[in-house]
């Protein structure tokens, strides 16, 4: 039987999703939905998008056979989907580009965005420079500190970066402030949300612009191996690289899908970002999802060494895919992610982003348990240049990463 994840109601994934936003934003969301529907019917829109994806972003990017890693682990054949090779160094540009083109269709010349690790902020600042759009990026003060280089990159690209002092100063607080800014400037500003989160239609739009990851992977693996993979692994913060990778495979029951959340210091410590593992439902930033919270419904701070996974909820479609059992969600700690990062760096000469390193660690465990003729794909969502300082601090320089 083919499981279907068709939305019964617009913006609903099972019981998850929805539009829990102040009235001031409702009209903008309805306009966005209409503009997107219209764009979907327009071949010229996709012609333009595909032109930039190819000549500007550098797609399609490779599905690389990680031979040394495969041999070292001694299990399944491992392929890496190289989103790290995109212009700006991560999958985030796929969505930023699509939404910027959509904003221009709506006649909006100003862009607001939030960023955690800075990858989405850099991607947004990049497309704004490309299309001459005014750009303001909200970033938590803690993230500004740990991703200082990305702040400077955004500023070089002409964006205004605003440090958010509220809360713990991470991604959640940046989204709050970006939403407040959007409410105040909704008439001429589009909000380029960076993950498969937020009120409808954002989770759908972000997923659709990220589906290219899974679509290319599907085509490439069939060309290479003549069949679909047995398993796919991707990391999950809000879940945009994972949903983009998974979505084209959801109806292929034989392809096992694994989403890897950030277990931070360990699930048992309470200091983590694994909202699906925590199993508490609620509303944050416009959608009904699994959300880290206490008994009073107060949202809890997420904890992860990787700024991009440091968010206390998981996008609504992932919550649904969990509930229907289609995707298996696991969690990997900071320490384990650091191991994953070192493993890939040394066996393949690829330094992955800390976010992607969560997927690598879990995939390495999984590959060992799989047969040699089985195929495993890892979504390598971004490169690790931005994390080198964090990794050096975490490894303490004691053993130089040995």
């Amino acid at each position, binding site marked *: 039987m083919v499981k279907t994840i068709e939305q019964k109601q617009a913006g609903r994934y099972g019981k998850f999703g929805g539009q829990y*936003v102040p009235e*001031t934003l*409702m009209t903008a969301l309805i306009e966005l939905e209409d503009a997107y529907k219209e764009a979907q019917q327009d071949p010229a829109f996709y012609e333009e998008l595909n032109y930039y994806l190819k000549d500007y972003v550098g797609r399609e990017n490779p599905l690389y056979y990680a031979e040394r890693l495969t041999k070292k682990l001694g299990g399944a054949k491992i392929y890496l989907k190289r989103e790290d090779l995109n212009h700006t160094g991560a999958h985030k540009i796929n969505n930023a580009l699509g939404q910027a083109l959509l904003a221009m269709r709506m006649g909006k010349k100003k862009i607001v965005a939030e960023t955690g690790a800075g990858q989405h902020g850099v991607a947004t600042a990049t497309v704004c420079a490309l299309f001459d759009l005014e750009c303001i990026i909200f970033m938590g003060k803690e993230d500004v500190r740990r991703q200082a280089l990305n702040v400077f990159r955004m500023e070089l690209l002409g964006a205004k970066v605003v440090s958010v002092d509220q809360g713990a100063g991470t991604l959640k607080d940046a989204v*709050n402030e970006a939403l407040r800014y959007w*409410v*105040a400037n*909704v008439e001429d500003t589009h909000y380029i949300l960076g993950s498969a989160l937020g009120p409808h239609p954002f989770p759908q739009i972000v997923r659709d612009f990220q589906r290219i990851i899974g679509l290319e992977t599907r085509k490439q693996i069939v060309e290479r191996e003549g069949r679909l993979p047995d398993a796919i692994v991707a990391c999950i913060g809000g879940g945009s690289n994972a949903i983009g990778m998974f979505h084209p495979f959801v109806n292929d029951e034989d392809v096992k899908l694994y989403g890897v959340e950030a277990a931070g210091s360990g699930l048992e410590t309470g200091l983590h970002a694994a909202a699906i593992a925590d199993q508490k439902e609620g509303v944050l930033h416009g959608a009904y999802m699994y*959300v880290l919270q206490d008994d009073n419904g*107060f949202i809890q701070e997420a904890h992860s060494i990787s700024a991009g996974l440091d968010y206390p909820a998981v996008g609504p479609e992932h919550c649904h895919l969990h509930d229907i059992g289609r995707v298996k969600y696991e969690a990997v700690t900071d320490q384990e992610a650091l191991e994953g990062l070192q493993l890939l760096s040394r066996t393949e000469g690829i330094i992955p982003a800390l976010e992607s390193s969560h997927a690598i660690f879990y995939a390495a465990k999984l590959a060992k348990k799989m047969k040699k003729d089985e195929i495993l794909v890892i979504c390598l969502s971004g490169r690790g240049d931005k994390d080198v300082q964090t990794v050096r601090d975490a490894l303490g320089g004691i053993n130089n990463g040995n």
Partner: protein
Amino acid sequence: MAIKTLQKVMEAKIAQGEKAFVAYIMAGDGGLDSLREQILFLQDSGVTAIELGIPFTDPVADGPVIQEAGLRALEAGANLRNILKTITKFKDEIHTPLVVMSYLNPIIAYGIQDFTKACEQSGVSGLIIPDLPLEESTIITSELQDTDIALIQLVSLTSPQKRIIKIAKAAEGFIYAVTVNGTTGVRQEFTEQLEQYLANLKKVSQVPVLAGFGISNSQQVKEIGAMADGVIVGSAIVQAFHDGNNKQITELLNKQSM
């Protein structure tokens, strides 16, 4: 649908040729112990209704003053459960309608049914949920149906006429006309469209239309009050209570009876 008490109180006030005045406070700012004192002070000052803000970790509709008040309330240990429990203790002394303003997540965490019951027990007569637009309101309307608790609908400057008509049809208690695009808090200026926007709402709505967001001094209370059936004042009152400047609140109220 029977007309709910909150609406009757508003209409009675307006029928006397007066304007309704709703005062917002952040429950728990200054500690839960000061809640009784603040509510009774506002009641004695003659406000039409009291809006009881519930602190939340992520108040996306609020500006700096209410955000900070919310943080103070959170630090003082206030939450939806203990705020309602506190109110219940002195509900016999309260004769002014209470309207709870809470973001949705604390209500979901409480449990919609239990929350509604607790509201009834503490004599709450209205509910404002800033992140619950009309489309999503069914999550709570079925529970509220047989109660005397009105779910207040918000209308914004960005709402198109068709939508305004839909919202007005569902409205009970009063319509909360948001007067700015943005968060709560002091504004020096309002859009020129404000008068037309409020006049249109009054024409479309079967229930009183109250203007709120940014209204912070007696001049604004008077001017904007004249365009609507009344006003809601939040940040200015929250700040005055925090500063211990209760006189300022009395002044705001006296100026509005014109």
